[in-house]
């Protein structure tokens, strides 16, 4: 099958037009500016770097500029890949067909804070930490909390349908967007919301089109303005970590915690035995624990002091009744506060044969898995990983598994389940990359087997995942409909072409 579309090439004339739109100082063509925007934190085939290097980097400053750039791309048929914080693990911002990188981080203003109706309207390039440092002065809080909290930007969070660590308390990004301004691939500027309301949370008017522009991985347009729900800043935080003598034990106790009905419970995170092993090669932020501790549950509560004071007692009862050991304030507080930074240091990589430190990038292969299936998935995933590590020691490393409470505003039912794998990208070649893609495919197929979704947070667009996602997970008509929508909104397939295999929408036959 070949695409019926031919892309144009970026020549001096097009560059001139782009410069006229955003200014000379916001168009970059030197190789290093382009090369550093080829990758996101997902494993990057470093040996094929130039295949993913875009042709030009454009930094727009307003909705109008985004619209003008897209009009040019559409006219000359140049691929455009929107890039926010570029901290996503989904490869969303990784160009597959070169073209223009539309780096939206310059659009980073807080446009409006509404203390009465409890909303904030922002441009897409602002990150959550910056936003919250302003909101906290007014006693407000935007509760989105991904691992990349200090650096991911709101636009990217929306574009990838981001997941929040404390989603059980405050919801995830898709639950927090009230309305958006979106530039379509043709350059048209539209507004989508709940009905037509800019700050309305529930409406039964029209189709739920807003959701179409959440998690599309840059394939349907560029969001340029977002109105978000904001929460009262919590009075108190209460992190508590508990230790167990086996994964099974922690798994059973997690069920009781998540179904306890405690509304302040913001997260329940199971660390499996491999993860605890991994942490034991880690720095001193990890306070030494007795050898009998093999698995951990991390919990956190947010809310008013009165609520949390009551709830924490109940939580301790649930934990201690099952023989869990509270791991102390220093670990609970320190580890919770370092949740964004600590688990993915490149030097945590090891070569198993002689335990040498090998710089590796962290990769998280995640899925949404129901509670009942966790032990099975865990067993299978570690088996798969071990097989590849044995064959390619020093290239891959198993960094253990996390299972995070997954649903919005409630902790029960399913988990964002991830296996963290270290990859030495410097050592990648055709063979190891192929092995990597196969490992992912195997991991993803286990998910389909247990009726999960192959990703709760990182999207299904990466090589290895995407085939399983499109051919298996979305096979019952969903992918067919996606293709029709894609072709309707983006007649020339300029928006992030190649992602989600949506090229197929434009193929003959």
């Amino acid at each position, binding site marked *: 099958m070949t695409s019926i579309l031919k892309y144009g090439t970026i020549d001096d004339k097009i560059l001139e037009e782009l410069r006229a739109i955003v*200014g000379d*100082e916001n168009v970059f063509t030197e190789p290093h500016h382009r090369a550093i925007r080829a990758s996101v934190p997902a494993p990057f085939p470093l040996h094929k770097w130039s295949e993913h290097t875009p042709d030009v980097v454009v930094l727009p400053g307003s909705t*109008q500029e985004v619209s003008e750039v897209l009009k040019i791309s559409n006219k000359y048929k140049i691929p455009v890949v929107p890039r926010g914080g570029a901290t996503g693990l989904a490869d969303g911002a990784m160009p597959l067909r070169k073209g223009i990188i539309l780096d939206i981080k310059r659009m980073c203003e807080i*446009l*409006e*804070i*509404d*203390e009465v109706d409890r909303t904030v*309207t922002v441009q897409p390039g602002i990150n959550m930490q910056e936003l919250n440092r*302003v909101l906290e002065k007014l006693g407000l809080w935007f509760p989105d909390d991904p691992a990349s909290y200090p650096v991911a930007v709101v636009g990217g969070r929306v574009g990838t349908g981001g997941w929040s660590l404390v989603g059980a308390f405050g919801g995830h990004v898709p639950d927090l967007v009230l309305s958006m301004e979106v530039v379509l691939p043709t350059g048209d500027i539209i507004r989508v919301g709940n009905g037509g309301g800019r700050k309305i949370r529930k409406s039964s008017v029209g189709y739920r089109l807003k959701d179409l522009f959440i998690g599309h991985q840059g394939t349907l347009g560029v969001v340029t303005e977002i109105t978000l729900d904001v929460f009262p800043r919590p009075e108190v935080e209460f992190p508590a970590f508990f230790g167990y003598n086996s994964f099974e034990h922690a798994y059973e106790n997690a069920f009781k915690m998540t179904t306890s009905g405690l509304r302040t419970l913001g997260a329940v995170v199971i660390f499996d035995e491999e993860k605890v092993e991994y942490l034991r090669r880690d720095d001193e932020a990890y306070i030494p624990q007795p050898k009998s501790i093999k698995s951990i549950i991390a919990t956190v509560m947010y809310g008013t002091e009165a609520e949390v004071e009551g709830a924490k007692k109940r939580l301790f009862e649930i934990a201690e009744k099952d023989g869990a050991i509270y791991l102390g304030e220093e670990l609970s507080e320190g580890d919770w506060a370092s949740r964004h930074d600590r688990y993915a240091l490149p030097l945590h990589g090891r070569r198993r044969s002689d335990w040498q430190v090998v710089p590796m990038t962290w990769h998280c292969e995640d899925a949404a898995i129901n509670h009942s299936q966790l032990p099975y998935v865990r067993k299978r995933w570690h088996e798969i990983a071990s097989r590849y590590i044995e064959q390619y020691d020093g290239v891959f490393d198993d960094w253990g598994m996390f299972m995070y409470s997954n649903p919005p505003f409630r902790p029960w039912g399913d988990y964002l389940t991830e296996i963290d794998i270290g990859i030495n990208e410097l050592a990648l070649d055709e063979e190891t990359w192929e092995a990597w893609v196969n490992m992912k495919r195997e991991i993803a197929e286990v998910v389909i087997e247990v009726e999960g979704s192959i990703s709760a947070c990182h999207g299904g667009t990466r090589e290895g995942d995407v085939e399983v996602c499109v051919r298996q997970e979305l096979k019952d008509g969903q992918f067919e409909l996606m293709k029709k929508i894609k072709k309707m909104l983006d007649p020339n397939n300029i928006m992030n072409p190649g992602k989600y295999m949506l090229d197929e929408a434009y193929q003959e036959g």
Partner: protein
Amino acid sequence: MRIAVCMKHVVDTTEVRIDKNSGELILSGIPTKISDYDKNAIEEAVRIKEKNGGEITLITVGPRDAFKTVKEALAMGCDVGYIILGDMLYDIAKFLDPITIAEILSKAIQKLGSFDLIFCGEVSEDGYNAQVGPALAELLGLPHAAYASSLEVEDNLIKVESMYEDTIETFEIQLPAVVTVNRLINTPRLPTLIQVMKVPKNKIIYWDLDELDLSVEEIKNSKIYTSLKEYHEMKVERKSIIFEGEAEDAVSKLIKRLKEEGLL
């Protein structure tokens, strides 16, 4: 009291440079702001409002991007801002004719209804024509005072001191009137960034020209009174002359030289 303030969204003129190769002004990538003189106009309006009550309407002709500066002005204490989208005019003449601007503003003011007092800055920081205020008064058929360095409101009257190079004139003017203010009249307040963010988005209203029954065509065919012929960079060269010797000698040599150059 209903007050209107006409303001201009300008690039920070201290940041404008000239491209060494082309000789053109580099205007993109430069921070934008409220023209400094207009800040004094806004401040004066806000002080009157704080004392006498009332409502302040901001009006600007400019790009959509002017919302940033209008927001800042609203945060200073104004009530509503109108941005008359003038981007499309940029293609007609790069630097707009101040009389044309005054015409557009006058249409907007007429549409918005009767104001008691209309403020402008004495000049705009970029064009420096000092014509918009007086022309606006003329077009609206209102009395006006220019270069106001102090102003007091008494019922239906304003007392204005206008400062020219070395004279001060005092006027009593019956309202409604147009006043252009200079930089001595007050020290404008600086709203905090949070105050700016708290300005409701719907307090800024965008009007296209046709909202004022105007069209680009019409403006294109109307007379242009002022236009920019050319500009060039002022070259300041240091002569770096060193007067050697004892201090006293050197100083008298310096004075002699300054006299020769016609500087003393």
